[in-house]
């Protein structure tokens, strides 16, 4: 496959354990600057662990994680955020008893206020007029779709160069799924690299440039999204809905 020449994030032979459980087995990823890369895989394949390893919530037992060429596998999470990695967490994980605005402030936590805060807020509000309308509301009372917008907005407030998204479409109505994927594409077009775990493989492959397929902790397949869409194994395992007679 075509490996990106200008990587922003790399996993080099990463092994991660939970106790005795070997979750990531010698995993290698290369995420190029400006790409959207999808990570596909079934339950317990190691997708969320990948995200946690990037954010430093889980430390790998061996291997290297490089961000912008620097080894980050031993850095505290706060330092990774400061360097430009922001998460959109599985199930949104907003701070439920804080207002929408305070959640956005938390997104900018590692940046001194004033350093473009108002400008970033404006950008989020432009992207999500709904978030602006709801800025005074307690986050836990928003609908799932609205929460996802705040979660993405919160990540943008960190002014990240890489956003790691864990299941951005989970639990959303089809209308919101469309919208969220449009937004992801838009954010990417403005220059932010996206590494995305997603159950909804057809959606994920429709906007991604490349993808990796993870199976019980091992990368079993990788390639351009186009190649993967046409791969019979992928079509059967992840794109079941395309197996309609006549669909090509």
């Amino acid at each position: 496959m075509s490996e990106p020449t200008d990587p922003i994030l790399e996993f080099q032979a990463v092994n991660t354990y939970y106790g005795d459980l070997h979750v990531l087995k010698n995993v290698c990823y290369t995420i190029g600057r400006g790409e959207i890369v999808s990570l596909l895989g079934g339950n317990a394949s190691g997708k969320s662990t990948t995200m946690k390893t990037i954010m430093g919530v889980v430390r790998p037992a061996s291997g290297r994680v490089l961000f912008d060429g620097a080894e980050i596998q031993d850095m505290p999470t706060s330092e990774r955020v400061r360097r430009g990695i922001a998460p959109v967490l599985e199930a949104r994980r907003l701070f439920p008893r804080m207002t929408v605005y305070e959640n956005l402030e938390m997104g900018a936590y590692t940046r001194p206020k004033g350093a473009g805060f108002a400008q970033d807020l404006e950008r989020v509000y432009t992207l999500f007029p709904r978030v602006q309308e709801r800025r005074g509301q307690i986050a836990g009372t928003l609908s799932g779709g609205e929460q996802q917008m705040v979660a993405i907005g919160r990540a943008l407030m960190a002014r990240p160069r890489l956003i790691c998204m864990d299941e951005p479409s989970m639990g959303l109505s089809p209308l919101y799924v469309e919208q969220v994927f449009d937004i992801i594409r838009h954010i990417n077009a403005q220059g932010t690299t996206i590494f995305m775990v997603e159950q909804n493989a057809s959606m994920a492959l429709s906007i991604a440039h490349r993808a990796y397929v993870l199976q019980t902790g091992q990368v079993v397949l990788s390639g351009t999204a186009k190649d993967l869409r046409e791969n019979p194994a992928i079509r059967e395992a992840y794109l079941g809905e395309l197996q309609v007679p006549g669909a090509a």
Partner: protein
Amino acid sequence: MTTFDLFLQQAINGLSLGAMYALLALGFTLVYGILELINFSHFNVFMVGSFIALWTLQQFGLFGQETILVGLPLAGVLLVTFTVTMLATGVIGVGIERFLLRPLRDVKGPAAMITTIGVSYILFNIILLTVGADSKNFPNPLPPLQIAIGGAVLRLREVLIWIIATLLMLALTFFVQRTKLGRAMRATAQDPEAARMMGVEVDRVIMTAFFLGSALAGASGLIFGLYYNFTSFLIGFNAGLRGFTAAVLGGIGNVPGAMLGGLIIGLVEAFGGQLIGSAWADVIIFAILVLVLVFRPAGLLGRLAPNRS
């Protein structure tokens, strides 16, 4: 005294006790909110605080009740004593967290809680062995000003206790609601992992919770001394248990809840003592606690389950 006068008098007493318990309850609630740890060392950080306050006042040449200060000297002495006491107990709290509790942070089960009980006894015995078992007369430099409201008496010391406790609680509320570190503290209480992934240094947040809670316990210990005119190595248990009960009553982990709970416990103690004797006040306090927990397990202002996934 008429019944109304008695009522008024007990309301005055109850508010003062309530201020003391509320400040204590806040320490339990701040730490519990973030670590889900019941910090029993808090009982005796409060007690040590009242001794630090005693020693600080003695540095000003104040012993017993013979020296009265007014105006600026009084304000200055109180300001310095509160500051020194709160800083000292705050540092003690941070030390307990840093050296005794942090190593146990990821140990499952009751290890950390048992450790806090152990620390509580260590503080208790240090004071017993160094200061002795006798009650110590607590300096009271306040002029004996008082006004009569009907048959009830409102003394300067009560007004002062209310003002100081209110200012401290307003300051804490401002910190938690309006500052960046306070916001990080709330975020950590609501979802520690998500807060961490926003770049919050959780160790720093935990340290802050211990510092603030312990500093407020120190202030509470000083207020105890001013209110009762004595202190002793024994005061931690009763006051601490009331402070803890206040935190649970209000909804542990909830800051306004701790304040409300403290006030309620203080008023119940005062009125209960008046109506059916002080020996029964404890029975009433804990009966109320049990009833609230049966019918509202999360406490008056609390939520049953933290919103976590």
